């Protein structure tokens, strides 16, 4: 890192300098940075292993300066469990999309959370399958158009969006579970605090930690990046309220 005292914001060390493959305005990039900054600030990078999912962030390993594994679709929490149980001294995080975590990976995330596996999950909810071209996800909003719900998600046939944070918060095993957004600078600042706390709790060997991040997919939503952030605020946030839902430290865990 540059020692120039004049620099008050720059690329974190835990992030590589590769240009990402993400679409313009896609907030995957912001979330990557928040994770990298947290690792830097907590001094964890050198003993951290990330788990990339199958989804747009499948290449996440290219953008972090730490060791990485590439999981099968939905199974990142199983990889993280296997790794962390074998090397409890390391820091492990999974980075998963909503298709990955809430659809095919439902079993793995629920059970990892319930066993209290001591890793951190960053759950990027953009209400769609980005990578495969915009199909409906379990988190797709009612009436939202996707390639597999071309006239809008019909809740009669496909049910309502799943709120993973609420669902996981019913588990009795202590944990840290929160939902944040990155759709405005203020929300990004708040998101950073919470993501950092999740990693700190892991470093202190406390509990399973998961932060859901409301994210955007301008490409598959078919709107501009700015319109996308606005849609998160107007349509997603009311259904997916932000906040810390389970906090190990406050004994609610």
């Amino acid at each position: 890192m540059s020692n120039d005292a004049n620099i008050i914001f720059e690329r974190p060390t835990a992030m590589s300098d590769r240009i990402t493959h993400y679409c313009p305005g896609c907030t995957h990039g912001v979330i990557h940075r928040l994770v990298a900054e947290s690792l830097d600030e907590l001094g964890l990078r050198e003993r951290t292993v990330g788990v990339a999912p199958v989804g747009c962030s499948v290449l996440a390993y290219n953008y972090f300066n730490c060791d990485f594994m590439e999981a099968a679709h939905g199974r990142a929490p199983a990889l993280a469990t296997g790794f962390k149980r074998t090397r409890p001294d390391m820091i492990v995080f999974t980075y998963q999309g909503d298709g990955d975590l809430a659809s095919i990976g439902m079993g793995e995330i629920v059970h990892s959370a319930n066993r209290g596996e001591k890793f951190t999950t960053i759950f990027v909810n953009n209400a769609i399958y980005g990578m495969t071209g915009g199909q409906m996800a379990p988190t797709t909003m009612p009436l939202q158009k996707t390639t597999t719900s071309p006239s809008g998600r019909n809740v009669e046939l496909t049910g309502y969006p799943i709120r993973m944070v609420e669902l996981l918060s019913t588990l009795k095993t202590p944990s840290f579970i929160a939902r944040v957004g990155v759709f405005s600078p203020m929300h990004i600042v708040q998101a950073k605090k919470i993501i950092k706390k999740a990693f700190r709790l892991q470093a202190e060997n406390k509990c399973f930690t998961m932060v859901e991040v409301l994210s955007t997919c301008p490409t598959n939503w078919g709107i501009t990046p700015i319109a996308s952030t606005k849609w998160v605020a107007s349509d997603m946030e009311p259904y997916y309220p932000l906040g810390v839902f389970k906090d190990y430290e406050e004994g609610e865990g």
Partner: protein
Amino acid sequence: MDKQIEVVFAGFGGQGVMTAGQLLAYTAMEEGKQVVWIPSYGPEMRGGTANCTVVVSDDRIGSPIINNPMSACVFNRPSLDKFGSLLRKDGLLLINSSLIDVKSGRDDLTETLIPANDIALKLGNPKVANMVMLAAYVAATDIVSFDTLGGMLDKKMGKKKELLDINHRAFEEGRKLIETIKA
């Protein structure tokens, strides 16, 4: 016309390269040819580039994937970089000179500069750059007749009269451009 012709349409997503290729494929089929249209759906998917290949033949078509195509219409710089070098010797390269200010650097190709975006803009809709290019390609190769092409456009685009008109005019411009060059 050769027994088999292959052409790649390549550009940014949103430049209409897929549509241009499909329209050509439909037209050739209408004229009784065997056709294959195949999009690239490879790793380059993200990051905004897109391309498709159209193979037109009198006989049954063997390989649908063409490693070294005979011709290409490139709409942006990354596409030129990629296909400029892949084209077969003596191939045909149409370059969207509105957005690309270089050439392939090869001397074994026929290269033609088509200011497709500029023309489209002049016509009043930047979106028809793809049709300008398609027309130029058809004019340059005679792969299909403009009659069938125009008819297919009407069939596929249907309804919107206004849009149809401007697309037809784009055809006209592309064709004229090549005729001027040929002449």
